[in-house]
């Protein structure tokens, strides 16, 4: 499993909460640190791509594992 600095459990939460919680969690991270997010909202797959693209952070990984979605988001700047 890839390495990460902090983990966010957004399972059971629906749009836009996973994104909002992730944004909050990223605020506490430094440049280059990685946040791992677990979610169950299928809409979050597209939304995390869009979030990364618009905020300049990097979505390193987006995977699905039996109905759960896992994301690795690297904070840039």
């Amino acid at each position, binding site marked *: 499993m890839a390495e990460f600095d902090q983990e966010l459990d957004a399972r059971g*939460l629906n*749009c836009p909460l996973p994104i909002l919680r992730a944004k909050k969690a990223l605020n506490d991270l430094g440049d280059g640190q990685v946040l791992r997010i677990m979610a169950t909202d299928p809409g979050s797959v597209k939304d995390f791509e869009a979030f990364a693209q618009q905020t300049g952070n990097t979505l390193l990984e987006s995977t699905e594992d039996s109905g759960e979605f896992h994301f690795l988001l690297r904070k840039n700047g």
Partner: protein
Amino acid sequence: MADKKLAIIATKGTLDWAYPPFILASTASALGYQTCIFFTFYGLQLIKKKLDLKVSPLGNPGMPMPMGMNKWFPVLGTTIPGMESMMTTMMKQKIKAKGVASIEELRDLCVEAEVRLVGCQMTIDLFDINRDELMDNIELGGAATFFEFAGDADVTLFI
């Protein structure tokens, strides 16, 4: 990246229509937008200190009703006393069960993200709303106040 700006006019005061302005404003803030919501007419319900939002099946044929209720009670049934509070209770249960944020939560997130909340002075006067009934951390203003922000906004929505 220079901040983008989102301006929203919120005109509706029901539980369902409270969602779009607060979802979009909180998300836009997370994406780095400067955001302002201008609350006017029934939208003022959304900035009351104590939220008491309801959803009504009346005049809303698009509203899915549980247990085929719209078949048992076509149109006239939606006027039965108590139907509104029943539908509101059911909607709130569904919101909770599906992990959808409450309006209170989304509104708090907007405040935390420093979304500018502006109450329309004219409609506050029109409806005799006391300033005390409204949240403390809002601004009051008129159409010109809205345009001061929206004039160079990247996205402007009327909800």
